[in-house]
């Protein structure tokens, strides 16, 4: 996806950047985002789950790891809103505590990818020559593997745990941001304000971090928001394969995998964690699309 997306993305938003000097572009962006109903739905979903994750320990009716073996596989009721799983644990408590894990993994892994990707992208784009060659080829190699396969391989080497799953997802997504930033830098490098900065005697560091980086932020934000959705799904996938969160942590993908044999006899054990994965990734996707529409004049008004 990245190639087509990059080409469509980069050039127009650089136009937008030049207009940044005009008063209130951010306010206009917010207004434009507000007019986009699906984007607002996405934002609400994200905020809802974020709030859930924050207050999870306060609103959990039960301890998420407390087992009552005699109450296993109970259907949803007043006592257990979402029913219980095969170890007699309250699914509602587990699902809301799971929001904490999934959002944390999603946000942290994307943050990691962005930091590393941006750094490598800037270096590659700004210095060019063999540095660019080397970094770009590393990106190519990483992109040559299907993402989830590479993540599985990384976790297999590091050993299965939530932390290692997070590292794996972060590593897998580095090239996405790296290439995005690199192409931004390549086009920005030619701009007159960079030449001007250089003429004023600014050194490389200053040009990179004071001029080029701020001007590359919007596509990163858009891509990052969409990336959180992917990261959450990848974390759930690794959890499902037993390579992510370890028991008793209530990671949504792990909950799905633990209960898949009950899909016929006790469907609530899989429906609720499944819905949560669906809704959070939908939320981030809608919000990301909305941000793109907002920041991307070429798409605006269509």
């Amino acid at each position, binding site marked *: 996806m990245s190639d087509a997306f990059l080409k469509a993305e980069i050039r127009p938003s650089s136009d937008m950047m030049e207009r940044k000097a005009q008063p209130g572009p951010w306010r206009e962006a917010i207004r434009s985002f507000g007019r986009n109903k*699906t984007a607002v739905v996405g934002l609400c979903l994200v905020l809802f789950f974020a709030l859930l994750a924050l207050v999870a320990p306060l609103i959990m009716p039960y301890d998420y*790891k*407390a*087992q009552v*073996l*005699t109450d*296993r596989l109970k259907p949803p009721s007043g006592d257990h809103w979402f029913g219980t799983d*095969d*170890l*007699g644990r309250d699914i509602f408590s587990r699902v809301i505590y799971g929001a904490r894990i999934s959002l944390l993994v999603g946000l942290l892994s994307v943050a990691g990818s962005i930091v590393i990707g941006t750094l490598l992208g800037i270096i590659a784009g700004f210095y060019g020559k063999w540095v660019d060659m080397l970094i770009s080829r590393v990106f190519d190699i990483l992109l040559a593997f299907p993402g989830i396969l590479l993540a599985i391989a990384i976790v297999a080497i590091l050993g*299965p745990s939530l932390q290692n799953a997070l590292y794996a997802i972060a590593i897998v997504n580095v090239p996405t941001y790296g290439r995005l930033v690199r192409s931004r830098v390549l086009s920005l490098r030619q701009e007159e304000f960079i030449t001007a900065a250089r003429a004023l005697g600014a050194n490389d560091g200053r040009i990179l971090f004071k001029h080029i980086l701020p001007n590359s932020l919007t596509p990163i934000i858009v891509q990052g928001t969409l990336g959180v959705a992917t990261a959450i799904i990848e974390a759930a996938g690794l959890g499902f394969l*037993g390579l992510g969160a*370890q*028991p*008793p942590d209530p990671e949504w993908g792990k909950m799905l995998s*633990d209960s*898949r*044999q*009950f899909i*016929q*006899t006790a469907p609530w054990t899989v429906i609720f964690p499944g819905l949560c994965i669906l809704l959070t990734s939908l939320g981030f996707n809608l919000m990301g*699309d909305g941000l793109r*529409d907002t920041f991307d004049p070429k*798409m605006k008004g*269509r």
Partner: protein
Amino acid sequence: MRKRMGWLFTLMLSLALILAACGGGGSGTSEPEASTKPGEAASTEPAADPAAGGSGGTLIVGRGGDSAALDPAIVTDGESLKIAQQVFDPLLAYKAGTTEVEPALAESWEISDDGLTYTFKLREGVKFHDGTDFNADAVVFNFTRWNDTESKFKFEGDSFDYYDSMFGPEEARVIKSVTASDPSTVVFVLNQPQAPFLQNLAMPPFSIASPAAIEKSGADFKANPVGTGPFVFKEWKRSDSITLEKNPEYWQEGLPKVDSVIVRSIPDNTARFNALQNGEIDMMEDLSPDDLATLESNPDLQKFNRPPFNVAYLGFNVTKKPFDDPKVRIALSHAVDKQGIVDAFFAGQAEPAKNPIPPSLWGYNDTIEDYPYDLAQAKKLLADAGYANGIEQPLTFYAMPVSRPYMPDGRKVAEVIQASFAEIGVTVNIESPEWATYLDDLSKGEKDDLFIIGWTGDNGDPDNFFYPLLDKDSIGGNNYSQYASDPLHEVLVKAQQETDQAERTKLYEEAQVIVHDDAPWVPLVHSTPLLAASKKVEGYVPSPTGSEPYAEISIRQ
């Protein structure tokens, strides 16, 4: 544009969901249609052709894993021995559904008064599948192959593990010599009396293979087995299926009843059960107790109970801190809710265990009093052992990645134990490496602190539980606890050499007291493994040892 695409996508997604739901309903209603055309279904099976000389049909069995190798002498896993029982016969066999010894390739036997000489009279006129004769020389060939560590028929990478563990390792062989006194008489001379000698001989690893085939195939024999058994080996598609065909010249009149057998590997419990429900297989092993209700509500299916003859246990690695201290082991023994585990995961198909051997085995010591589930007591004992604040440093808890007959889902059971331990302040991290690695790691005892595993009895003798699992000689083998106790070793060796049954019973009862007091294990459950089959399958009698010949099974057309 983009937004409209989004709506289109949503629309198509919901359409797909609706279609999928209809599809499900559709297949349900089409089932009776299929069954109204039995002629069509039957004609595809070669067995239905009367010209084939019988209406045997094909038996398709689904199981959890594939064989490791097809030469029974070099394997120890149940899945490999399952196929061996179809292709080979040992000298003696177990009566269907029991561990009582009965004649097989040996018709009769005499034992000398000192218990050192066994003379076997062999069945005459039996032929191997390659057409060569079964006779005393073949028996001598096989035993020499297993006994002689320099044998040229011990191929690269192979070892005769079961021979070594049942008939003594190289430096302490039980069998002194095996000689053929005439073509149908074999004489075994022993170095010392061995009480379970006949029980041991009947084990599938000691099946007689065709010497001509071993000489011809060499190292390939483990993929091309030739024996005298009810079925002839046809094809092995690794990790998929093994095909066997009826041996028309089988020495047991009228057997086998089916024309061919296909044994398929379907690792996932749910997938295997689905295959049975869809009629893709006729019989399946290791039914998950959670699927029992579904099975019982299906009029086309039947359930088989394998006689309980196993133990699943939580083992402590006694070479690691803090489990080198028996006080800690006993404290944790109080923190395992065995009854809760039985009720939750075995649907009543198991009983809590207190000894390493199952109650159906002679020598079981029922006077042992189990450590009751009592977290307060556990906490107190842990404090007495010097861990008043629990054990915070996380311990590595190995739980099986695969379903086993003695425990369908080890990881779930481990989660229950993890939660109980957490309540007394003991932190454990559950790990489930891949199955072969799992067994390897347990053998070495370097990575794990505690673990879940189990054992199914092979031959109906208590020695077959105690010696391989708990004797100090078996460290590095199946003694995964790395438990070395000299008093226990003394009792076990004495029991091996004693031939008086009453005396042996006493010794094994004593062994259980030692094990209980030292607590290298928390015995968890003795389960009744569940099998399921189509109602068409008749004459199946599951053996307590975990596998049995399929010769008596027939399929009603």
